[in-house]
């Protein structure tokens, strides 16, 4: 079984915010995207507010921002955001009825595990987003999965509510396991070395996941982040180096890549 994505509609679409929710440190935007195809888990969209995109810190944002799909219902796409700069700041300011420019769905998403293998979803921070839609898709496909999520503290750990029944780790021990989510991952892999790992999160976490899976010979699919200008292969801005010594564009060749294509998941300039 493979999941195949439809072409993105050519051109950005003007879409209305139909809901705006808060989960502790995170905001969720729900967009009424009735004309686009269903996004695949791991795909992303480029978003920009139609009004006042600009005028924030350093007179930014100017370029649209890449956001993973958090969840898709027919005609609606959900996004999870953390306010880390002028772009996410502006998007989080939007209220129901405001409009955004939306381009997508874009990029290569996750692929389901081979028949009979369990999926371990391991993420952190806003990296939670693509794991939620992945969890939905695995459930629909009848594939067993477990989710492990790491957060900084209790306000961030509220993001865990976006998944079914995840195990949570926090840096400060305020919620769940006191420590790193990769410690939970190692324990899971000890118990089930035959599982397949799906991961998204801050670069150091992603790199730790990559290293653990490499050491254990476990297949892993990593959803990368990278600074993007366009999201559709036009600018060559979003590259990451691969093991074979070349660069790939995260927007068209990713964002999900097989971990064994990379020497490192520490992407220069991504994350905070």
């Amino acid at each position, binding site marked *: 079984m493979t999941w195949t994505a439809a072409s993105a509609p050519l051109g950005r679409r003007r879409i209305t915010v139909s809901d705006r929710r808060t989960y502790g440190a995170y905001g969720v935007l729900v967009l009424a995207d009735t004309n686009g195809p269903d996004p695949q888990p791991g795909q992303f969209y480029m978003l920009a507010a139609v009004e006042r995109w600009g005028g924030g810190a350093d007179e930014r944002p100017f370029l*649209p921002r890449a956001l993973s799909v958090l969840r898709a219902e027919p005609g609606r796409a959900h996004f999870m955001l953390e306010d880390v700069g002028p772009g996410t700041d502006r998007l989080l300011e939007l209220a129901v009825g405001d409009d955004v420019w939306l381009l997508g769905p874009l990029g290569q998403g996750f692929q389901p595990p081979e028949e009979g293998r369990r999926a371990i979803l391991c993420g952190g921070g806003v990296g939670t987003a693509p794991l939620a839609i992945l969890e939905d898709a695995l459930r629909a496909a009848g594939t067993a999965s477990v989710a492990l999520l790491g957060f900084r503290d209790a306000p961030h750990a509220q993001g865990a509510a976006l998944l079914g029944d995840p195990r949570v780790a926090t840096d400060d021990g305020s919620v769940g396991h006191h420590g790193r989510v990769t410690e939970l991952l190692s324990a899971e892999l000890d118990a089930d070395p035959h599982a397949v790992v799906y991961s998204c999160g801050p670069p150091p976490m992603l790199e730790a996941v990559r290293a653990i899976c490499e050491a254990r010979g476990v297949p892993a699919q990593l959803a990368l982040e990278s*600074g993007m200008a366009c999201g559709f292969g*036009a600018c060559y801005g979003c590259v990451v180096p691969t093991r074979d010594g070349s660069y790939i564009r995260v927007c068209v060749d990713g964002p999900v890549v097989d971990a064994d294509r990379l020497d490192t998941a520490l992407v220069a*300039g991504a994350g905070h």
Partner: protein
Amino acid sequence: MSGAVDFCGLALEHPVINASGTFDAIAAQRVFGDALLADFPFSAFVSKTITLEPRAGNPPPRIYEVAGGMINSIGLPNRGLAGYLEHDLPSLAALPVPLIVNVMGSVADEVVQLVEAVDARAEIAAIELNVSCPNVKTGLDIGADPDELARLLAAVRPRTRKPLIVKLTPNTADVARVAVAAEASGADAVSLINTLRAFAAHSTRPGAPWLGGGTGGQSGPAVRHVALAQIAAVARRVTIPIVGMGGIQNGRHAREALDAGACIVAVGTESFRDPLAGQRIARELAAPRV
């Protein structure tokens, strides 16, 4: 849409093309499917700069956002001449618009080889020569110095009968003087502006560059009025057609570039925000002035 225009003998459906390096028609077709061909946003397609040998480009990060634009330090990644002709040209030749190939070399001999190889391919309608390449000896861009550019064109011009567009660098004291040298040396057109040399500081390492390539080039609306000044200065001094670009976001901006003396315009950074920007701008341009 009205607005058909003759540019160096190329019959263009409208006066809006893409700026080199800001639209990858092959990737876009992968992303958007055949809708891209049915609705191609530009009246000609300019490919990213091609060099003789393949280049990987600069290490990331390659992009930095600034007030009204961005700085890029992409580093001209490309498959090299042979790879381009073999892998990219067949797909690009299938586009519904004329194809312009942008080439760059650091010495005349390289440029001659590039131009001769491109000249031999009937699928290619015109050649754009990117002269924002530093001279190996002086470190200055070839296109910053009228004499150096004239020497380069003396070697290159005789090698092709295709229209030859010289893409000028804005990082010079007197771009009009360079344009005059280009015209005198047989260029069929000039295009401007390329990006303004700019530096983005690292967020945590004092004095270090944010961009993997070190210094980069600024584009977008923040440079639009610098572009207009250069286009107007060049238009006063040459009679060959001008491709005007730099920060164009809408029909009014395109109109201002044409009014300043450009024959056609190119859209770069705005396509990153709106993949159909070229088409939108052509439509806005065709609307009557208000």
